[in-house]
C-alpha cells in the first residue's frame, strides 16, 4: 500500500484545482467541506501508507514520478522519499491540517471570500506535503516556496486593511533572506556532490571536506532561520498573526514554521560532517530565541501575540535540540507542539469568535463558564505547553533539556529558565482569559492599550465591525458564546492528542521510546547518545515539573490572587519586543537606507554602465567603421587589389627576412 504515497499530495492538489474551477459555484459551506474531505482523505492515505512502510526494507520507500529537469549532467527527478521522518511528519500535517480545515468551516462562516480561503488552505497543504515528501532539495524547495507564497496569501487574506497586507509583505520579504541561504546551499551541494538527491548525497556526506560541509550546513541553516522564525529573522512571525486564526494555527504554528527544523533534521549527516561550531551555533541561536521570545510573550496583551511569541520560543527549543544532536527530539517536540499549539490557537480563535472579534485579553476574563469546551481544551493545551506531567509538552521539552544538559550545562540552565517563563506567560493568558472577573463590557479603555494591538487585530468582516472600532466608547454589548460544533470537535480531538502525545516516547526504557526507534534509520547514526541512568532521568523530570509548577504558581499570585505587582513582569520594553522591530526599522530607514542607495547607485552607474557601455561602444565603433562601405564597386576592387599586393609582398618578403 506504500505505493499510494503519491496520492497524499495529489488529493489536496485536486482540492485546490476543483476549488479554483468551481469554488464560487460551490459557495459556503460546500467548498469548505470539499477542502476538508481532501485533506482528511490525504490523512487516511498517509495512515495506510504508514502501515505499509513498516514492511519496507529499512523503512524507506522512494517513488519517482517523472524526470523533472533533464539538463545534461544535471537531472532532477520529481520523486518522493517516504521514510520514517517524512511519514511521521505527514501524519501530523494531514491530521492536524484536516482538523483545522474542519474548524475553518465554522470560523470563516459568513466571510465573503469563503471558497478562496479553502483554496489557499488546500494549496498550502499540498505545498507542505511536497516540502516534506520531496526526495531531493529542489522538490523540497518547490514546497518551501509554495508554503511561503500561501503564507503570504493567507496573512493578507483580509487585505482591505493595509496593516494586514504589509504584514504579509514583511513575512514574504523576511523569508526571502532565508531562502537565499537555502538556494546557495543547494548550489554548493550540487557543485560538491553532483546530485541534490537526499538518498545519494547524504550517505557520502562524511567524505566531503569539512569546509564544504560547513558552508552547506550554515547556508541551509540560514534558510531554516528565515522559515522557522529564529533570531535574527523571527520578526515576521508575530506580525503574521494578521491572518485568520486557523491560518495562524496551521501555518504559523503547526506546520510551515517547522519546515526549517525538518530541513535541518533531514540533512543531519551534513551537520555531523561540518565543523562542530555549526551545531554549537545552532544550539545557542535556538536557546537564545527561546528565551528572547518568551520574555516578549510575557508582556503581550493580544491573545494571539502571546501565542505567536510562544511559537517562536518553542521553535527555538527545537533548534536547541538540533544543535545538541537530538534530531529525533526536535521531531518529537515538533509533533507535540503541533498538537498543543494548534489547539491553543484554535482555542484562541474560538474565544475571538465568541467575543465578536475581540483580541485584547484585558477585555476578557471569566470565560470558562460561558465557553466550557473551549476553556477545558485550552487548559489542556496550557498544561501541555507549560510542561506539566503527564501532558505531551512535558515529555518532549524535558527530552530536549536532557540532551542540552548532556552537551552543556549553560544550555540546560537557559532552557530551564525559558521553561519557567513559558509556564508563566501561558498561565497568565489562561488566567486573564478564562478566570478572574468578566471585563468585556467595561467601558473604560485599557490604560496602556497600544495602538498597534488594534491595528493588527484579526478582524473578520472588516466592514461590519469597522464602525465600533473607530469609536470605542460606543462598543456594542458583547455576549460571549460557545462556538458551533465544527469548531469544538477539532478542539476536543487536538486536546486529546495534546494530552497523550507524550506517550509516543517515554524515556524510561528502550522499548518505550517508540518515536526514537521509529526515526532511528534517519537520525540514529549521527545523533547524540544520551546515557543517563533512570534515577538521573527521574531527577531531571522532577526538576522540570517543579519549574513548570513554579511558573504557574507565580502567575497565580500575580493575576488571580494579586500578591505580586503586575508591573514587575509586564515591562514596557518587553511589550515592545525589546525594540527589536523598532531597531530594524530605524536601521533600514537610516544607515541601511544610505547603504541601499549606495548599492543602487553602484548598480545604476557601474553595473548598468558596463552593460550599456558595451552596447554604446559597439554602436559608436560601427558608426565610424560603416563609412568604409561606400557602395562603389571600384572601392571594393581597390581594396581587393591592395590586399592582394600586401599578401603577395608578405609571401615574398617572408623568405628573405
Amino acid at each position: 500500500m506504500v505505493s499510494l504515497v503519491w496520492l497524499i499530495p495529489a488529493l489536496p492538489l485536486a482540492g485546490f484545482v476543483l476549488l479554483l474551477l468551481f469554488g464560487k459555484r460551490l459557495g459556503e459551506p460546500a467548498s469548505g467541506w470539499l477542502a476538508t474531505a481532501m485533506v482528511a482523505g490525504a490523512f487516511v492515505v498517509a495512515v495506510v501508507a504508514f502501515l505499509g512502510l513498516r514492511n519496507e526494507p529499512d523503512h524507506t520507500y522512494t517513488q519517482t514520478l517523472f524526470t523533472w529537469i533533464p539538463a545534461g549532467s544535471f537531472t532532477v527527478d520529481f520523486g518522493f522519499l517516504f521514510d520514517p521522518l517524512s511519514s511521521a511528519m505527514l501524519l501530523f500535517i494531514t491530521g492536524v491540517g484536516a482538523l483545522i480545515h474542519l474548524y475553518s468551516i465554522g470560523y470563516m462562516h459568513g466571510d465573503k471570500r469563503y471558497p478562496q480561503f479553502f483554496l489557499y488552505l488546500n494549496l498550502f497543504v499540498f505545498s507542505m506535503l511536497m516540502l516534506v515528501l520531496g526526495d531531493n532539495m529542489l522538490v523540497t524547495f518547490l514546497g518551501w516556496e509554495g508554503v511561503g507564497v500561501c503564507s503570504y496569501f493567507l496573512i493578507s487574506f483580509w487585505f482591505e486593511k493595509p496593516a494586514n497586507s504589509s504584514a504579509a509583505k514583511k513575512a514574504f520579504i523576511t523569508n526571502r533572506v532565508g531562502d537565499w541561504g537555502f538556494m546557495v546551499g543547494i548550489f554548493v551541494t550540487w557543485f560538491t556532490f553532483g546530485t541534490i538527491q537526499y538518498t545519494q548525497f547524504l550517505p557520502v556526506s562524511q567524505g566531503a571536506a569539512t569546509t564544504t560541509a560547513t558552508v552547506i550546513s550554515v547556508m541551509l541553516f540560514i534558510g531554516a532561520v528565515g522559515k522557522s522564525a529564529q533570531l535574527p529573522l523571527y520578526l515576521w512571525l508575530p506580525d503574521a498573526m494578521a491572518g485568520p486564526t486557523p491560518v495562524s494555527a496551521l501555518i504559523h504554528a503547526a506546520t510551515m514554521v517547522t519546515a526549517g527544523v525538518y530541513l535541518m533534521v533531514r540533512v543531519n549527516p551534513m551537520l555531523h560532517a561540518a565543523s562542530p561550531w555549526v551545531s554549537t551555533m545552532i544550539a545557542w541561536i535556538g536557546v537564545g530565541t527561546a528565551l528572547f521570545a518568551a520574555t516578549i510573550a510575557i508582556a503581550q496583551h493580544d491573545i494571539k501575540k502571546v501565542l505567536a511569541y510562544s511559537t517562536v520560543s518553542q521553535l527555538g527549543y527545537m533548534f536547541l535540540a538540533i544543535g545538541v544532536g537530538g534530531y529525533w527530539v526536535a521531531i518529537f517536540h515538533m509533533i507535540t507542539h503541533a498538537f498543543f499549539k494548534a489547539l491553543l490557537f484554535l482555542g484562541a480563535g474560538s474565544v475571538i469568535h465568541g467575543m465578536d472579534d475581540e483580541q485584547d485579553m484585558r477585555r476578557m476574563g471569566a470565560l470558562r463558564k460561558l465557553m466550557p469546551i473551549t476553556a477545558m481544551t485550552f487548559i489542556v493545551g496550557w498544561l501541555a505547553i507549560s510542561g506539566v506531567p503527564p501532558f505531551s509538552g512535558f515529555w518532549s521539552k524535558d527530552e530536549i533539556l536532557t540532551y542540552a544538559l548532556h552537551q552543556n550545562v549553560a544550555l540546560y540552565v537557559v532552557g530551564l529558565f525559558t521553561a519557567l517563563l513559558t509556564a508563566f506567560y501561558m498561565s497568565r493568558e489562561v488566567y486573564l482569559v478564562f478566570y478572574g472577573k468578566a471585563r468585556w463590557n467595561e467601558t473604560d479603555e485599557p490604560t496602556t492599550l497600544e495602538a498597534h494591538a488594534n491595528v493588527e487585530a484579526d478582524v473578520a468582516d472588516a466592514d461590519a465591525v469597522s464602525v465600533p472600532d473607530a469609536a470605542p466608547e460606543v462598543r456594542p454589548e458583547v455576549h460571549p458564546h460557545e462556538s458551533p460544533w465544527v469548531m469544538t470537535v477539532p478542539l476536543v480531538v487536538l486536546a486529546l492528542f495534546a494530552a497523550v502525545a507524550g506517550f509516543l516516547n517515554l524515556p524510561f526504557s528502550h522499548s518505550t521510546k517508540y518515536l526514537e526507534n521509529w526515526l532511528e534509520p534517519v537520525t540514529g547514526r549521527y545523533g547524540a547518545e544520551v546515557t543517563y541512568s533512570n534515577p538521573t532521568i527521574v531527577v531531571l523530570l522532577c526538576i522540570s515539573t517543579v519549574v513548570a509548577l513554579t511558573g504557574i504558581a507565580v502567575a497565580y499570585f500575580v493575576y488571580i490572587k494579586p500578591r505580586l505587582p503586575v508591573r514587575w513582569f509586564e515591562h514596557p520594553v518587553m511589550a515592545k519586543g525589546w525594540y527589536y522591530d523598532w531597531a530594524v526599522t530605524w536601521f533600514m530607514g537610516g544607515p541601511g537606507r544610505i547603504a541601499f542607495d549606495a548599492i543602487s547607485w553602484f548598480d545604476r552607474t557601474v553595473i548598468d554602465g558596463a552593460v550599456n557601455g558595451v552596447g554604446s561602444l559597439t554602436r559608436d565603433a560601427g558608426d565610424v567603421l560603416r563609412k568604409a562601405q561606400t557602395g562603389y564597386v571600384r572601392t571594393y576592387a581597390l581594396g581587393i587589389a591592395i590586399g592582394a599586393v600586401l599578401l603577395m609582398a608578405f609571401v615574398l618578403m617572408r623568405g628573405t627576412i
Partner: protein
Amino acid sequence: MTLASLSIVPLSPVWYLVLGAFLFTIGAVGLLIRRNPLVMLMCVELMLNAVTLTFVTFGTMLNDIGGQVIVFFVLVVAAAEVVVGLAIIVAVSRRRPGANADDISLLRG
C-alpha cells in the same frame, strides 16, 4: 627575315609572362577607373585570361600538366561568372537605363 624563319626562333617563355602581367594590369586598372559596367566586366575577363596565360606558360616551363588543366576550370568559372554578371547588368539596365557602376551604390554604409 621571313615569317617562317621567325617561327623557328623559340621565344623565351619570359615574354609570355610579361604579356600576362601587362594584360592583368590593363584589366585591373580598367576595372578601377572605368564606370561602364560592361567594360568593367570585360576587364575582369581580361584579368582572367591573363592569369590563364600565365598558368599555361608556367605549365610549359615547369613541364607540369597541371598548368594546362587549370585552364578548363578557369574557362568554366569565367563562363559562369559572365552569365551572372551579364544578367545583373541587364537587370540593372532595365530599371535604370544608362546607369554606371557608381550609380549602383545602395549598399553603402
